[in-house]
C-alpha cells in the first residue's frame, strides 16, 4: 500500500464513482478510479463502469473529500443499536394488498 504513493500514477488523484442505474433510483457507489480532474473522472467512469449498460447518470467525488467514520469507534457507534428491535417497523399488521414493504 505504501508503495503506491511513490508511483508516478499517484499524481493522478483518486475519485469515488456513483452511478444511477435508472430513473427514480439513487446513485450507488460502484468503485473508484484515477483521473486528473472532474471532467476526466466522468469520462473514465463512463468507460470503466457503464460499458455494460449499468447506468444513466454519473456522479464523481474526489476521494479526499469523503470523510469516513473511524473503525476503532465501531463498538460505540454501532453496537448500541443491536438490541433495539422496536426501531424496526415490523410490529405492524400489513394488509395483503400491500407489497414491496
Amino acid at each position, binding site marked *: 500500500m505504501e508503495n503506491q504513493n511513490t508511483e508516478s*500514477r499517484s499524481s493522478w488523484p483518486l475519485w469515488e464513482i456513483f452511478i444511477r442505474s435508472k430513473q427514480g433510483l439513487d446513485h450507488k457507489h460502484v468503485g473508484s478510479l*484515477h483521473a486528473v480532474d472532474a471532467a476526466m473522472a466522468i*469520462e*473514465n467512469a463512463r*468507460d470503466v463502469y457503464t460499458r455494460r449498460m449499468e447506468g444513466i447518470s454519473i456522479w464523481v467525488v474526489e476521494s479526499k473529500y469523503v470523510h469516513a467514520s473511524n473503525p476503532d469507534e465501531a463498538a460505540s457507534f454501532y453496537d448500541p443499536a443491536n438490541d433495539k428491535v422496536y426501531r424496526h417497523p415490523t410490529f405492524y399488521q400489513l394488509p395483503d394488498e400491500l407489497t414491496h414493504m
Partner: protein
Amino acid sequence: MEQKTLIDYTLHLADNALVLGHRNSEWTGHGPILEQDIALSNIALDLIGQARNFYQYAARLRNEGVSLGGARGGRMSEGVAATGGGGVEVTEDTLAYLRDSWDYRNCLLVEQINGDWAKTILRLFFFSAYQYSFYQRLQQSRDRELAAIAEKSYKEVTYHLRWSSEWVIRLGDGTEESHRRMEEALDQLWKFSGELFVPADYEKVLAEKGIAVDLTAIRSQWEERVDAVFRQAGLTKPAAAWEQTGGKQGRHTEHLGYLLAEMQFLQRAYPGCEW
C-alpha cells in the same frame, strides 16, 4: 457494375473502421494508465463493431450478386476469389481475414503505426472528426442499410471525438514534453489527413446518386473542428503541404502489411478455425 461500386464503397468504410480499431486495440494492456487503457479499448471495440456491420452488408451484396447469376469471381476485384466465383458464400470473416493489403480500401491515416500516446490520440482525433461529419451525412444516404449503420455509429463517434479532443487539448496545452510530442505527431500525420477528402472513383459515382457522402461538403466542417481544438491546445496547423493518397485504391504504406500479417495470421494458418 453498380453493385461492384457499392461493394467497394462499403468495404472502404469497413476497412477504415477495422484497421483503426485494430491499431487502437494494440494498446490494450499497454495503456498509460488503467482507465485510459479501458477507454481506448472501448473505442477499438466500437470501431470493430462498425466494421462488422459494413462487412456483413458487403458480404450480403456480394452473395446476392452471385446468386443473381452474372457474378463470377472477378466481379469483385478482391482477393476473396479464393472463396468466391464458385458460388461459395463470402462472410464478414472472409472479407476481413482473407483479403490482401492491395484489396484493402482504407485511408492511409488509419494504418499509420501507433507511435506514442500523442500520435495515437491525434490519429484518432483526425479520424473521429472526419467520421463525425461523415456519419451525420451518411444517415441521409439513399441506401437504407448504410444509413442505418451510420445512425448507430454516429453516437459512438460523437464520444470518440469528445474523448480525443479532450486529449489533444490536454497534451497540446500540457507540459513542454507533451506539447513537443503533439507537434511531432502532427508532423508525422498531417500529410495523411488530406486523403480523407479526396474521393475515389467509387465515392464520386455513388455521391452523384445520393448514396455516398459528398466529401467536399464535410471538409470545411472538419477544418473548423480541428482549428477550434488546436486553438485550445495551442497547436498550429501546418501550412497546406503535399498530401499522400492511394489507400482508397489499395496502394498502402508499408505499415498495413504488417498489421494484416498479425491480424490475419490465425485464419491464414488454420483456415476456418473457430474458438
